[in-house]
């Protein structure tokens, strides 16, 4: 029982606060400081980086793959790759952008593997809402009133349904721009494409989303 109580407590507590830019607050070391310490072999600095960014990485993966258990495994894989690649990381890009790039690679590798496993057929598990883990939806930072909860639940279901219907590239562009708040150039770096392609993906993704939500 205590285990579940602690688990529930962790859910209620929610993610560790942190800004997208990775700048630390007065008592929080910045990403750059933590990365420097990691590169000197300080694992506690890496643990702090993981704690600071795991919520964003997990949310990004969860919103892409729509499966809680796979998201957990993939988030572990992302941070393992981050740890292995940290010695080569140069501060030309923001740490968070670089981390999203690794997340992008891990998610697309997983999608390719899933596609091969299903012999190119559409993977129903990716679309079947019944297959989504019970706790897959975002954890609210506060408890909503019942009427708010109903309306937010409907809104979330509609938006998640629409996001599932657009292509992974369009979904990722929307998530990186509108949810994670990245600049166009950063999205291009993460998705390994030109800014023009990012613009095009955002243009069509927005149109498609509007169209789907109008229908629903």
């Amino acid at each position: 029982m205590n285990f579940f109580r602690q688990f529930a407590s962790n859910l209620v507590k929610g993610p560790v606060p942190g800004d997208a830019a990775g700048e630390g607050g007065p008592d929080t070391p910045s990403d750059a400081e933590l990365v420097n310490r990691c590169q000197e072999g300080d694992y506690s600095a890496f643990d702090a980086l993981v704690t600071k960014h795991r919520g964003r990485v997990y949310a990004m993966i969860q919103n892409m793959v729509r499966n809680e258990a796979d998201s957990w495994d993939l988030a572990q894989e992302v941070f393992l790759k981050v740890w292995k690649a940290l010695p080569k990381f140069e501060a030309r890009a923001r740490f968070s952008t670089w981390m999203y790039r690794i997340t992008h690679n891990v998610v697309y590798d997983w999608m390719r593997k899933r596609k091969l496993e299903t012999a190119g057929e559409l993977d129903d598990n990716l679309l079947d809402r019944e297959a989504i883990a019970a706790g897959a939806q975002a954890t609210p930072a506060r408890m909503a009133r019942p009427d708010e909860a109903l309306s937010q639940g409907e809104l979330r279901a509609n938006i998640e349904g629409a996001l599932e219907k657009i292509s992974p590239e369009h979904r990722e562009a929307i998530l990186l721009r509108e949810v994670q708040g990245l600049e166009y150039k950063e999205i291009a770096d993460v998705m390994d494409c030109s800014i023009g392609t990012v613009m095009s993906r955002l243009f069509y993704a927005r149109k498609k989303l509007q169209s789907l939500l109008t229908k629903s």
Partner: protein
Amino acid sequence: MKTDRKEELLTRWMDDGLSDEELRELEPVLTEHPELHEERADYARLREELRTAVSSEIEPPFPDFFNSHLERLVREEGRGVDKTRRSEGAFNRLWIWWMAPAAAAAVVMAFLLGMKSAQPVNQGGMVDAAAGSGVYSPFAEVSTEVILDRESDSTLLVVEGLAPLADTDLVVGEGFLDGEHGYFVKTEKVY
């Protein structure tokens, strides 16, 4: 205007990101398609709804275990340990989702059942294994054994197959529950 350029300008217009010069460049398109103004207002609302509905941060389940499991992977990586276990996705998931609470349950059950049967109320001193002590474990890979030693007046319960536990994870107390004597294990922070 070329399609690519039009898409770029419209995308940035939706984000309020156009300079005056770019806005002038886009003006003919907006004049030709006045419905774009309504689309832009609609999308501004959709953007707010999107940010409300889709979280930018979600703590992974078992966040502390997330870090400790990752640390184990990193250390295995450093030692060049064969990570075939990690590639066994189904087992890995079972381990994550069921082993942690089940391990805690196994420890509790093992202590309670083992100790209760090994040291009945009012009996005093230790009884030997032949007295019929038994330990329940829900997993075949978790083995349990009760070792009773009269000479040292102690009972040792061995549970093998669980993830390593820190000494601080277990706080053993002794007392009565429903009139029966037993030993208790605090399972907070047991993963």
